[in-house]
């Protein structure tokens, strides 16, 4: 990763603008910035390095082919890519066609994932929030997020009522938001 390249300091939006005009260096800079997030979430879901690399390749190729899919109104780039990576990995896990077009995903979140420092700070808080959750809630949230199980499947697996599972998933997600806002 070239550290003297001015592209490493450029904003996400500036890089996307350069990608629009076909700048491969801008694409490389964006990859260097976010590939670790995309790969990590894909690997956690798929538990297979080859499959995770395919998701990584697929997402960045789509961004190259259609850089207009991202603009600043869709949220910050790191968060947007993280959500798309998770969704694509779940699609791959469940061997189904992608359900969401990347153009349709809008993400609103506070930490700017372009900054390593802010990313680490947020990571610490989110991990703390997960550790602080009741085991049943954390488990429901992780099954929905990392295994792509539906609330019906989770209810069947745990023997808990459907409504309880739905609420656990939502309140689990909300508690992450709260801990970041605190």
């Amino acid at each position, binding site marked *: 990763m070239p550290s003297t390249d001015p592209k490493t300091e450029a904003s996400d939006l500036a890089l996307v603008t350069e990608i629009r005009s076909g700048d*491969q260096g801008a694409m*490389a800079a964006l990859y260097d910035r976010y590939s670790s997030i995309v790969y990590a979430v894909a690997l956690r879901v798929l538990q297979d390095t080859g499959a995770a690399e395919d998701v990584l390749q697929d997402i960045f190729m789509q961004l190259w082919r259609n850089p207009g899919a991202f603009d600043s109104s869709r949220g910050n780039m790191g968060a947007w890519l993280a959500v798309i990576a998770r969704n694509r990995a779940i699609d791959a896990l469940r061997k189904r066609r992608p359900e969401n077009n990347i153009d349709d995903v809008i993400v609103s979140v506070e930490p700017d*994932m372009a900054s390593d420092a802010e990313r680490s700070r947020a990571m610490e808080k989110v991990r703390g929030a997960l550790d602080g959750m009741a085991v049943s809630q954390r488990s429901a949230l992780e099954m929905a997020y990392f295994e792509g199980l539906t609330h019906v499947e989770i209810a069947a697996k745990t023997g808990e009522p459907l409504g309880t599972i739905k609420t656990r998933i939502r309140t689990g*997600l909300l508690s992450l*938001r709260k801990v970041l806002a605190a």
Partner: protein
Amino acid sequence: MNAHEQFADGLALYALGSLHGDERSTLETHLEGCASCRRELELLRGDMSLMALTTAGPKPPVRSRQRLMAAIAKEPHMPMVVEKPVAAAPRRSGWGLFAWTGWAAAAAMLLLAMSLMRNNSALVRDLTSVTAQYRDQGSKLQQANEIVATLLDPEAKKIELVAAGSKPQPRGKAIYERRNHNLIFFASSLPPLPPEKIYELWLFPANGGAPIAAGLFKPDARGSATVVNPPLPEGVEAKNFAVTLEPESGSHETPRGTVTIVGAGE
């Protein structure tokens, strides 16, 4: 939580891609007309991105980067379509009883080739026109993005000009578009917040209805702040806007604190 309560759990499942069938289509229909639930969906996706932060692991192998760069090098942007000319039909040799059928087939192929070439020329013209439009719109969008990025950039220097010798007064500007309930609000020279207080923006409907909360915000060290597209109900005609000083959690239902700035019309 501004989303409609009956859709609250469904929205989280929808964000996760776990909602199917009738529940999904009912929610999607509702989302088309409900800005508040669309906003909540964006926030839930934000929460999902936070979950991704818990997955830090090994970095992708170097070969992944090489593979990507090799792939994009093969796909330069906006490739122009260059059709290969249709190959001429191979000539048949020989003078057999049915040799004329070869000439007929060649003639048919020639006619077909001419027709395809005409269609191809029309398609190339269309493509050129669409490409030009795409570039033009892309350029306008890029310009708009740059303007918005500058306006919203916390690092951008925002200097308010006032009469020489006078002290800057708190002021705000609300730009509101009812049809899509888009709102952009800029404030400047706001006094620093007292402890456990926050500023809240309010929309006063033209029909005289109760004020609508339009976002909580904290100004930066220079007293500047921006609120962009807070969740608002559809179709509300605005008569005025005001900013009040509220307890840190906001008042939401009705302004309770002191008014800091208000539109000139109120």
